[in-house]
């Protein structure tokens, strides 16, 4: 998958390149709007990560012109502007998604995955990681063949984690996708932490192999290689 990162700040651009390459994307970087426009016009990309604030021609302008010329590559607009009007403006200009800086990297990865598989519905009813099995339709979870009693919220949380095995999930993602809250705030963070702790107790306490792990400062990950 080829991704173009348009970002004028070197450190940020480098971090994104590095992070995306680690996740097996092939990454090009453009530092200005003109460069981005040239690259998108001459090469094919599967996705463009576009910073709004760029020297010279800004992200919105580049995006508008690209869309006018019929370029339909998915664009993820990244910006420090988080007012609702800004979001609307960005999406109106033709962005497919909008991410506010500073964002958690796992969140960026999740959005990219979502954009790239857009249209491909993922409706698997049976999810498994190691000896953990979930039957979404029947609302049942088994660990090592033994059924776990989970609350509705814990079930949703585990399902969300199971759908992205081995990937770090941030608190922002949980707040938005599991709790359906439009913003992250302190009480909610506490609530999420407590829920994760409880889920971990039910999931891992009686097992040798720990599956649910906290990545300090980033979020949580469910996977076999959890230490």
């Amino acid at each position, binding site marked *: 998958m080829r991704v173009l990162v348009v970002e004028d700040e070197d450190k940020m651009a480098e971090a994104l390149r590095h992070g995306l390459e680690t996740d097996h994307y092939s990454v090009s970087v453009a530092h200005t709007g003109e460069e981005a426009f040239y690259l998108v016009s001459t090469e094919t990309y599967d996705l463009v990560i576009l910073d709004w604030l760029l020297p010279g021609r800004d992200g919105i302008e580049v995006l508008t012109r690209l869309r006018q010329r019929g370029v339909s590559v998915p664009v993820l607009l990244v910006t420090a502007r988080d007012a609702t009007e800004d979001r609307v403006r960005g999406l109106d200009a033709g962005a497919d998604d909008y991410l506010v800086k500073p964002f958690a990297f796992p969140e960026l990865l999740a959005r990219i995955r979502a954009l790239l598989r857009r249209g491909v519905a993922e409706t698997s009813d049976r999810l498994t990681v190691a000896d953990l099995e979930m039957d979404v339709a029947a609302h049942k979870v088994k660990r090592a063949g033994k059924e776990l009693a989970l609350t509705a919220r814990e079930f949703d949380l585990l399902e969300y984690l199971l759908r992205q095995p081995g990937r770090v999930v941030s608190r922002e993602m949980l707040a938005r996708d599991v709790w359906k809250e439009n913003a992250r*705030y*302190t009480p909610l963070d506490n609530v999420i932490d407590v829920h994760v702790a409880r889920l971990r107790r039910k999931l891992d306490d009686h097992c040798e192999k720990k599956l649910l792990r906290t990545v*300090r400062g980033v979020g949580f990950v469910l996977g076999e290689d959890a230490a």
Partner: protein
Amino acid sequence: MILRGVRARLTLWYVAPLAGVIALYLTVVSALAFWQMNRVLTHLAKEDLETVKGLLYFRADGRVDLHQEYHHHTEWRQAQERLLEVLGPDGRILYRNERLGARTIDGPPMPGEGDRVYSERSAQMSDGSAVLLVSSRYELQGAPVLIRVAYSEDLIWRRLRETLAILLLALPFALAAIAFIGYKMAARALDPVEQMARRAQQINSENLDERLPVENPDDELGHLAIEFNATLGRIGQSFEQLRRFTSDASHELRTPLAAIRSIGEVGLQQDASPEAYRDTIGSMLEEVNRLTGLVDNLLTLSRADAGHIALQPSVFPVMPLLREAASLLEVLIEDKSLRVELVEEEEVCALADRLYLRQAVVNVLHNAVKFTPVGGAISARVYREANWAVLAIRDSGPGIPPQHASRVFERFYRVDEARSGEKAAGLGLSIAQWAVRANKGEIGLISAAGDGCTFWIRLPAARCRAAA
């Protein structure tokens, strides 16, 4: 300077009407004087006419003449101004005095002229000059004649002009004096204003606690000064709030920054295992998260201050909102083994932006959960009070001493930093306060140290929809 302008204007404002009044006064006085002198002259003319009657005689040639010697006795010098004409019943002129010469006072006798004792009128002589004319019929030595005595109206006009001239000559001086006094008086009246302006000029952000002197609180300038001082007070207050907020904010921002720096520097000092490095980086990221949350909250508040947040009010029942908040925080409540009681005394609906209000309720409830000790109790009630929908949340925490009670909603304010042990910046209640106030509600607390505290939120009540 503007004040001088005001002074000049004030002066003009009372000099101009005064000049008008004086002009009117002079006109009236002149008219009265004219009328009066006219009367006097008429009176004199009649007397003179009587005198003349006694002096007239027929000469041998049948003409009429006047005994001249009497002139020496006259007491009225203006008798010399006398114009005299004697006419026969057919209009033939029998006598003209020297002063009249070849002129005629008036034409032939008018019908009925002098029939009654005297007839008097203004007339125009043959040379066009205006005279005051008194005439009378008289039997002179058995022959009927018409005697006309006239005085030039110039006499009156001259007198009038002289008097007016004197008065008008004095007028500019009087007006100048009035203007001068007026200007001085205006200056004196406006002096406090100028003083206030000078004082106000010296007040800037550094000495906002200075005030204008209030000399007399009951007069207009006193009101102005009091209002100005009140405005200064309000500005000073918000300025102080802003100053404290800025300093608190930078302090709050600096704390995680300092932590990030120290953790990073210490982490680099020695070789460590990858796990240890992970831990270091994770620790730094935790601080970054804190910083991000802080900046988000500050941004929300500053947008709220600037009025940039558009609310979407709707009517909703309050109790479900409370239940939602409680269920969101349920795990925290369970963790501390708190007993939570939610009471709906009656169904109440509020008109507000539900989303922001939910945030406010969650924040207040979270605050209660945070400060209630393990095993404690929280009780929340929803009821109606006049036109308010009220939500009261009572905790069994340590309570808040009265001196802190009014400040708990201030940004970054913590009642007891050491005891709360919370890492979160004290913005939750500030945001709650903003959300409630923005929805035209009120928020407050009742508390006594050691006896828990009750936070209450009042919102404009609304009629619940039937389906709700």
